[in-house]
Every structure is written in structure tokens, then in C-alpha cells.
């Protein structure tokens, strides 16, 4: 291919550490949200295998780790399968749980405030709530995965409206995941249809882009979306193991493969384990591997994204790509 690739973003940093029992680091992280002062809230989804791994951690871009809150369970304030995270204008933290069909609300320090939501397919009921985002008036939009629709609520969980239905056509979804709101529009990651759809906040389709495939402009089970101040669209192309940048009209600009390095938390670890540090001298994190299957390739190359699943952009244009498989996020800046 001879596509002219516009270099929009370049690697700046890597933040993370495999911490499957809690503590400084993440375990199978899957979503990130940014507070207005730059604090980062990262969900560690973790799994059945690691009962202490599930929680929400707080850190910042300077590798400062502030602590964590919530944990695995079904008690109020606990989570089983946290999927999406967003902060409202008062910096309260909202987390969806696709297993318990709850939206749980915490204050900005992680203290439990309330939860709402019940399983079902009637309006206001949820079935596998996934991505979520607030509009300028603090209304909350949730992608209601198995009901194939977007539901709009007040911050207190009062149902306002819904749009979308199952299918492959305009205004239809197949298991929607991440969402983002920008300038009176909502972008929905239509996961199983391999596309990003843009709607007005009332649910009128505006445009849609993406097709199934492994080429640069194509998508393979995308999971999350973010929009920057210039309207550029960033997509976590989960199945293709890439993060992609598109212009406001959905034209492809750049594909990122991941360029992670060992930084602060990882370096502390290696300093305590001299034998590993030593063995790493001959290690090539970008070694040529004998496969082109993206998931398998990512499994074998430490520096590449492995399961880039959550994506967010901050007010200064910094891009954060959360990788479930590598317990970290990579930070990109404007090139």
C-alpha cells in the first residue's frame, strides 16, 4: 500500500505494571477516565482467577500512584465485571458492570455513593451495560450491549430516552461497546459491526465509518473511541491490536502498533531482580516473530499493544491507550 500516512501522534511514555492482587499497577485493565486535574482512573477488570485484582486505581501521567478503590463482589460499591468508566462535571466516578447490570457511583476519592440499574430489556433496564459518557448537561449515555441500544439517563439514574436496535443498518447496532461525546454528538463503537457510528444526542444518525478487515482503514472488533479538540477520532481497534487515528470525517490518518518501554514501576521491579535485569540485556522487545495474526504477534512482542481495549484523550491532546493483555497504558503526544 502506498497510502500517505499522516503522523499525528508519537509515543511519549508507558505506565503500568502487572498487579493481580491490587497495589501499584493494573490487572487486565480495560478502561480509563481522566479527571479535570489530570488524575487518571483506570479500571482493572481482572478475573475469576484473581479475586483481589478487580478494582479501580488512580494515578497520573507522572507515574504517581494514589491508591485504589472498590473490589470484586456484589455488595454495594463492589464490582464483578466493570466495563466502562466516566466522570461527571463534579468529578464523581461512574462505572458500568456488565455482569451485575449496575451503574455504581463513587465520589472522586472512590467512596461509594450509590448504584442503580436492573437487568432486562424494557426501557431503562440494562443488559450488559458497557461504555458510558456524559454530555455537557451531565446526562449519561450508556451503551446497552445486549439490548443493542443507547440509553440516556439523568445522573441519578432516571431514564430519559433510548435509541438504536439490533441490526447492521443505519441506526442499528450489534453489541455496542465504547462511547464518546463531543460537541453535541455521540460516537458509538458498534463492536460486532466493525464500525464507528456518529449520532446526534437525540439519536439521529449522522455518519458511520469502518469496515471489517485488517487493513489500516479497516476495523476488527473495535472496543473504544475518543475525540480530541480538533474533532479527530481515536479508535481502539482491539481485534487488529492497533490504535487508529481518523479525521473528523472518518478518513484514516494513522495506525499505531504500540512502542512500549519499561518505565518507572517496571524499572523498580527490575532493579530488585538483578537476574532478570541481566537476562534482559539480550532481550529484543520488538523481535521479529513468525506470525502475522495480530493477536498472536502481540502475544510475542512485548512492545506492541496486546489487546488495546480502552482509549482516551486529554485536554492537552495526550492520548492514552489501555492494554488489557499487558497491564499498562501507553501515552502518545502530538507528533
Amino acid at each position, binding site marked *: 500500500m502506498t497510502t500517505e500516512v499522516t503522523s499525528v501522534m508519537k509515543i511519549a511514555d508507558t505506565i503500568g505494571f502487572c498487579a493481580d*492482587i491490587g497495589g*501499584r499497577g493494573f490487572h487486565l485493565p480495560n478502561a480509563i477516565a481522566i479527571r479535570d486535574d489530570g488524575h487518571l482512573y483506570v479500571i482493572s477488570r481482572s478475573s475469576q482467577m484473581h479475586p483481589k485484582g478487580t478494582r479501580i486505581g488512580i494515578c497520573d501521567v507522572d507515574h504517581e500512584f494514589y491508591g485504589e478503590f472498590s473490589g470484586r463482589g456484589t455488595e454495594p460499591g463492589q464490582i464483578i465485571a466493570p466495563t466502562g468508566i466516566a466522570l461527571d462535571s463534579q468529578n464523581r466516578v461512574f462505572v458500568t458492570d456488565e455482569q451485575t447490570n449496575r451503574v455504581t457511583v463513587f465520589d472522586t476519592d472512590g467512596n461509594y455513593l450509590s448504584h442503580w440499574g436492573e437487568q432486562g430489556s424494557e426501557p431503562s433496564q440494562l443488559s450488559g451495560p458497557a461504555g458510558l459518557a456524559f454530555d455537557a448537561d451531565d446526562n449519561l449515555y450508556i451503551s446497552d450491549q445486549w439490548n443493542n441500544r443507547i440509553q440516556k439517563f439523568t445522573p441519578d439514574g432516571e431514564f430519559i430516552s433510548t435509541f438504536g436496535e439490533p441490526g447492521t443498518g443505519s441506526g442499528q447496532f450489534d453489541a455496542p461497546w465504547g462511547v464518546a461525546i463531543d460537541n453535541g454528538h455521540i460516537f458509538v463503537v458498534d463492536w460486532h459491526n466493525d464500525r464507528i457510528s456518529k449520532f446526534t444526542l437525540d439519536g439521529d444518525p449522522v455518519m458511520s465509518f469502518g469496515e471489517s478487515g485488517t487493513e489500516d482503514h479497516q476495523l476488527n472488533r473495535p472496543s473504544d473511541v475518543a475525540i480530541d479538540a480538533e474533532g479527530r477520532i481515536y479508535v481502539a481497534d482491539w481485534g487488529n491490536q492497533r490504535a487508529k487515528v481518523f479525521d473528523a470525517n472518518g478518513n484514516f490518518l494513522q495506525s499505531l502498533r504500540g512502542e512500549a518501554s519499561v518505565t518507572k514501576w517496571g524499572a*523498580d521491579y527490575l532493579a530488585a531482580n538483578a537476574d532478570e535485569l541481566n537476562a534482559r540485556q539480550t532481550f529484543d522487545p520488538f523481535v521479529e516473530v513468525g506470525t502475522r495474526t495480530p493477536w498472536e504477534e502481540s502475544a510475542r512482542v512485548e512492545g506492541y499493544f496486546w489487546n488495546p481495549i480502552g482509549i482516551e484523550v486529554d485536554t492537552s491532546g495526550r492520548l492514552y491507550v489501555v492494554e488489557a493483555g499487558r497491564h499498562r497504558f501507553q501515552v502518545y503526544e502530538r507528533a
Partner: protein
Amino acid sequence: MSQKKDRVLVVVQLSGGNDYLNCIVPYADPRYQDARPNIRIEQDDVIPLDDNFGLNPGMGVFKDIYDEGNVAIIHGVGYPVPVRSHFRSMDIWHTANPNELGNEGWLGQAIRAIDPAGDNPVTAVNFGHGLPRALASPGVPVASVGNLDDYGLLTGVNGERQREQALNAFSRIYSPRVGSSLVMDYLGKTGLDALRGADILKEAPKRYSSTIEYPSNAIGTALKGVAQIHFADLGTRIFYTVHGGFDTHTNEVALQKVLWQELSEALRAFKDDLNEHRKSEEIAILIFSEFGRRVKDNGSGTDHGSGGVAFVLGDAVQGGHYSEYPSLDPSDLTEGDLAYNFDFRGLYTDMLEDWLGIEATPIVGGGFEKIQPFAVSA
């Protein structure tokens, strides 16, 4: 030999690798302070044993037990050529064989020595699901109990009457049949043994009464089950249970403290229960972990190391320190880990020979130095 009562061994496995340095803390040693810039337990927080060593802040209750004089702390326990894999290292402890893959557990072999014909299906009882390798040995029956209150066969049959009928039918279905194959005969015998074991065990909670409240966590429940079975005089000689979560690569200070609080409180209740029932002198408790952890911290925890600490508790135990705390001098470390100075197979030999009265050499594969923690030897 005139033994009043058969002696009983309770093994508590600390899974994940209990950090020795933050468990028995050499708080006065500057090399400890230097090695642990991020997760050091400060002098003010340590529960002092003496001028050199102190216990993890979660071990307050454990200290009370220690002060009663029947807790042996065995320092620097390990084996030659340390292995940092949880699985393999645990396997080595379970099979008492650091040199090759063994498939017989050390306690499995002990059970065979105690009950060669496998007459008692509850000679050994494991609290947990599945069977730890330590207890596994071909043909040796062990009851593995998830929860004593609902242990048994056909637990999924609803309704008390229906289950009763089903169990009755089960025992008939598994009864010997004329002219059936060897496999069928073996299945039949094993099924009936399992049923018998379950029938025996389910009596234990019914006969149990006590004023002691156990903590309502997994280790508390397990030790309560041990007490219930022990008090019922079912001939159980070996109990096994696991207390997990010690793999503290991150968040170590908080996690290890809670784990030791849980264990200490469970042990306290267990000891009190034994005392209340005047059944403490037949019991010895062995506590071990598959390895200790690295000397240097990694920022918020520690990684897999080698030399560790073990404990033996019981009325017959002469409390105090055994073996020596390994040197923290960098030149004495093995690849950044505390060097072991006491082979765990010696500790097993103590348990087998001097407590259970079983010849240890064939089980541990040779003769090893013992620590001799039992004041009254067998």
C-alpha cells in the same frame, strides 16, 4: 510403646510465598532497612520479640500464642538449588524431593504407614477442594472436604427425603455384584468407601459443642472443622489446609498483615477450643510456605525468593528460635535471596519420627538434621 492418645499433625500451607523478612522482621538490622525502602516495617510498627527481631504488625495475636511458650520458629528453611516457581517449589515441599519429579506425597506415604490396609477412610482429612500432592499416594484414601457442614455424596439432590432415598440407592448400586468385572468391583468398593467416609464425617459437627467463636473466614472455618473431627475421635491423624494469598508482588504491607491477622485469630480460636476440650496435647501444627521472597523490594512488594520461615505449634513444643536467621550481608545472599540454612526434610523428619512415630528415611529420601522441637520426644 504406651501412648495414651494417637498424635495428630495439622499442616497449614501458606500459599504464594510468605515474605520471611516482613514476617519475622530483623528490624534493627540496617541492611534490612536499606533493602526495603518502600515496604519496610518500621521499628514502631513491629511487634518485638527481642532486640533484634519482631513480628509483622498483623501477628499481635500470634505473639500472645508465642508468649505461651509453645511456638517454634524455624529460621532459614529451604532446600538446595532453590526454585522460584510456585508450582515446582510447592511440589518439592509436597513430595520431599528437590531432585526429581516425585509423584507420591510425603503425607500420603505417612498415611500408608499409619493405615497400610486403608481401613479408615478418614485417616487423613484435607480441608479444601481436590487433593494436594502432599497427601496423594496410590491407593491411599483421603477425604477432601470443602465444607464440613455440607460434605458428602449426591449433595446436589434436592430435598432431605429425596437425598436420603438417593443415598440409600447409591449404596445398593455400588454393592458387590456377582460376576461383575474387576473395574466394576473396584468402582463399587471405592464408592462405598467414599460413602462410609462421608457418613463418618457428617457425624462430627453433630457431636460438636463449644463456646469458642472462630473467625468467619476460610482458615477459621477450616480449623474449626479440624477441631470438630478431632473431637469426634474418628481416628484422623493428619489434617491439611491451605491459607493462600501470600504472593505479594504488590501491595505487600497491607496484604501480608491481613493474612497474618486472619491466621493468628484462627489459630487462637483453635488453641482455645483444644484447651476447652482438653484435647490439646495430641496436636502439633506445622506451618510452612513454598519459599521466602527476595530481599530487595520492588517498589510496592517483593518477588519470589528462596529461604523462608516455618513454625511448629503445640503443647509438646518447646517454644523459641531454631536454626539461625540467614545473613543479610549481600555477599551471603544467593542470587539476591536469603540463603537457606536448614533443609525442610529435617523438619519433616521431626514430624514423622518424633511426632507421628513413622520411619522418615524412606519418605524424605535420606537422613537429615532435625531441629527437635518436641520437649517430650516420642
